[in-house]
Each structure stands twice: as C-alpha cells, then as structure tokens.
C-alpha cells in the first residue's frame, strides 16, 4: 500500500483513463455485435443475454472507475482541468454506447428478426459500418490523431442523415407495424450510438466549450 508512493504507476492518470475509455469502446463493440447478431437471426438466448448484460456491467464499472480516477486527479492537480472535464463528459458517451447496444438486444427479445428481410443487406451494411466506426473511434482515441478524428466525425455525420431518412421511411412504410417499429428503433439506436461516438471524437479536435457540438455548420468544425 505505502509502497505505491515509491513505485508510482508508470503512466499518468489521464493516460490510464484514456486506456480505460478505449477498452470501454472495445466492450461496447462486443455488446453491439452480440446484440445485433441476435437481431440478424441469432434470436434471444440465455447465453446472449448473459454476454450482453455482463459486458454492459463491465462498461458501467469502468465508468465509475474513470470518474473516481478523475476526481482524485483533479484533487491532486488542477493543471489538467479541461481534460478532466472532457473525460468526465465523454465517459458517459462511452457508457451510453453499451446501453444502446443493449437496447438492440431488446429488439430481438421483442421478436425483431432481420434475417429474411427484404432490406437485410442494407440493414446489415449499416450494422457493419457502425461496428467499424466503434473500432476506428477506439483506435483514434488511443492515438489522439486529430486528422483521423475529424475524418471519422465527417463520415459519421453522413450516417446520421441516412438514419433520419430511414426512420422517416419506416414511418411511411406500408409494411406491418412490427416491421416499421423494429426498423425505426434499429436506426434510432444506430443513430444514438453514432452520435455518442461523435461526441467522444469532438474531444480530440475541439476546445472544451465545443464538446458535443459536432452538429454545427461544417465550416465551423
């Protein structure tokens, strides 16, 4: 215990927090893949439910750990205050990715199944795109590459517009109510996950007062 003072930790709190956020995104990807597999034909099962719940629980625990570390760090030194405030905000985004992925599993639980759907390929393409976005965001967060972060924000911004169109289309569709609701919710969850990833990425490229404001005019970005 006391030796912790002499040993130190080898890396700074903020590096440690950054590492935890990256692993939260990796866990988010796991929940997302597991939950969407259920929607694309896997269906509900005890094992899938267990994986989704326990991984989400790990994400929640990681969020609490990050908050404690940030509180401790800000008590000891104030020089990193902007970064502490930013991390305190974006750790919530990382946690919400797990929550929305978990909601995807609820769709399967309620009976949604896109396996044989006419728009299966399109639905699957967006799933893969969001999965890749989570991975890319994790890598970008680890490297703090500003150019890559901006590129991802721009790419994700395009997805948001697509999801809005898809949700509107679901409202106007002539299919059954359960098909429309499943698609509206599916695209809504994808939109929220994408938006939370964009919030996280804004921390790499923008000053603190612009955190979360990725939806400003493009010329202001």
């Amino acid at each position: 215990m006391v030796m912790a003072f002499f040993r130190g930790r080898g890396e700074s709190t903020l590096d440690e927090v950054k590492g935890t956020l990256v692993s939260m995104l990796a866990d988010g990807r796991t929940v997302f893949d597991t939950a969407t597999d259920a929607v694309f034909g896997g269906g509900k099962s005890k094992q899938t439910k267990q994986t989704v719940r326990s991984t989400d629980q790990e994400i929640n625990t990681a969020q609490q750990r990050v908050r404690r570390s940030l509180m401790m760090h800000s008590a000891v030194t104030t020089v990193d205050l902007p970064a502490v405030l930013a991390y305190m905000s974006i750790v919530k985004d990382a946690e919400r990715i797990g929550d929305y992925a978990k909601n995807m599993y609820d769709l399967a639980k309620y009976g949604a199944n896109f396996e044989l759907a006419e728009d299966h390929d399109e639905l699957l393409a967006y799933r893969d795109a969001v999965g890749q976005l989570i991975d890319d965001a994790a890598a970008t967060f680890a490297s703090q590459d500003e150019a890559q972060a901006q590129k991802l924000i721009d790419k994700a911004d395009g997805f948001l517009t697509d999801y809005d169109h898809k949700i509107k289309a679901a409202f106007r569709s002539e299919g059954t109510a359960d098909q429309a609701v499943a698609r509206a919710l599916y695209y809504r969850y994808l939109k929220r996950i994408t938006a939370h990833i964009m919030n996280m990425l804004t921390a790499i490229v923008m000053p603190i007062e612009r955190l979360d404001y990725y939806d400003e005019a493009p010329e202001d970005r």
Partner: protein
Amino acid sequence: MATPQQPIMARSARLPSPIRALLVVALLYAFLVGVKMLESGIKGIGSDYTDPLFASVSNPLAGLFVGILATVLVQSSSVTTATIVGLVASGVVGVEAAVPMIMGANIGTTVTNTLVSLTNARRSEQFRLAFTAATMHDFFNVLVVIVLLPLEVFTGFLHASASWIAGLFVEGNLGGSFDSPVKAAVGWLANLAEGVIETIIASPVAAAIVTIAVAIGVIFVTLTFITKNMRALVADRIEASLNAALAKSGTIGIVVGMLVTIAVQSSSITTSILIPLVASGLLMVRNAYPITLGANIGTTITALLAAMAAGSIDGLTIAFTHTLFNVLGIMLVYPWPRVRYIPVVLAERLANVAVRSKSLAVAYTFGAFVVFPFLGILVLR
C-alpha cells in the same frame, strides 16, 4: 488550459521531470540560504532591539497565539517553523519559549483546508463532509495542545526529550553549535548576500533588518515554489498512494499522509487534497483522518531541514520538538479506540451546526484563527 483554438486533449508543454527535479534542488538550496540569512540577520540587529520585541512570547499562551496568527497570515506552517528555527538558532528566542509557537503553527496551518471546505458551502451534504474533514484537524491539534502544552510548561519534558534526541545526532549542549555539511554548503552564499546588503546599507541595524526581510521573502517564495513543483513532480505518486489508502485506515493512512507531506513540503496541500475527495464521497471522513494526522508528522521535515542550515543545537532541538510533539500527539489519541475519534465527532457536531448556518462556519474560521489569537496576543503581551 485549453484556449478557444486548442483541442481539449492537446496537453500544454510541461517542464520535463529531471529539469523540475533540478529546480526543486536549487529552490531547496535557496530556502536553506534564506534560513541562514534569517539567523544572521536576527543576530545582526542586536539584543537591545530584539529582547523587548520578543519578550511577550515568554508567555506560553502568547507564544501559542503568535504561532497561530503568523501561520494563518503566511498560510504555511513550514514558513513559520523555519522562521522559528532561525529565531531559536540566533538565540533571540529560547527553546522553551519557542515550543508554544511551534504548537501554534500546528494549529494555524489547519486554516487552509478549513477555507477550502468553505467552497462547498452551497451544497449542504458536501459541505457537511468537507467541513468535518477540515475541522477534525483543528480539533485534533487543539486537543493535543490542551494536553501537551501545560505538561511542557510545567515539566519541560518535550524540549528536554528533543534535546536528548538532538544529542544522538550531534555533539554539544543547548546554546552550542554543530558542524553541518548543509551549513557549510549554504554559508558562503548567505555571507555573500549579507555582504552585498551591508555594502548598500551603511547602518548595521538597518542592514540586518533588510537581511531579515530578504530572508523571510526567500523562505516564503522558495517554499511556495518547492511545494508547487514537488506537487507536479509527484502528482502520480500521490494519486497512487491515496488510491491505495482510500479504503484503508490507521497506520497506512498515517504513513501515506506523512510521505505525501514530506514530498510536497506542506501539510496544507495534503489536507486540502483530501477535502474534495471527502466532499465527493470518494474518501470516508474516518479514512481521511489518519492521513491528516500523518501530514502533521510530515510537515516537521521543513524545520529539520532549516535546522541543518542553521547549525545550532537549539535550532535542531526545536525542530525535533516539533516532530516529537506531533508523534506524541498521535500516540496519545490514535491508538485508543475511546479517544481516537473524539476530534472527528466534535468536527461532525460543528459541521452539523455549520450546515444550518453557513455564516457561523465563516465566523468560526475567522474567529478561531484570526480574532481569538489576535485578542490573545493583545491581552497577554
């Protein structure tokens, strides 16, 4: 800080650790030169001037209040104790008279975390916890002084024991001096600075007064920057050790508090770090308590360093008195379960009152640390 154009995660340029460490060594050297100059400056004024000036502190209570008020004014017990070591080493203040001043410095230093706790006043529950964490240090120090000051006044056991401990390290008797490598290392620069002042100011008394002013300035500034740089240098280690002590109590907390305080050369920093941790619920008040007590021991390192520069057995004795007083205080209170948490319980009761009346909290802080000692000095001088 992030500017409007700067991304949040872009960290501003920081001083590399080895350079910062060298800076701390240089500041420590300058601090010790300051202590040496203070001692010489006080000697230079002459007893005709200094004896009447310090006659009032021969009253133990007045000495105690001087220690409190001086520490509150400079917001650092390290500055006060280093100055007291200088006064004692110069022979202007006797060891017996300096003991209450050292005790006063211990009480006065707790004002900083009490002030920090007041920043939580808008949120009642956080304020209750923060004010408890801050004032338990006040109560502990006051209670220990209530027990040990009369004992010291009537028996002199504290400074006699400290004198015996000093004798284990250096040869000689009270009133004598010892050869210290630190003293030799800082002596030439202190003499050079004094020589420059004496060349500019013809009157020996005026030159001595300027030397004292410069010395106190150097002590204050160097300690401030030592604390600031050491805090930056060991921030990760502080976090690691505090994290390790979060759910622990007792000896571990005391040792962690001591180590952190020795590292940053300021008990106020250690105890002030604890306030937001307690207020946010990250650290329980009773787990913060031993860390606070450890800070009391850690802060005595400054007076010991100052004594090394002064090279006076009296100075070393008063420095050891400071350490002994704080170690004894913990031994008197902490090992006994019935007594251990009396300061915490008293602090909790005061915090309950303070939550209901925030102005009372402000009145307590101002009254206990400024008005009461000031009136005490006026009455007892």
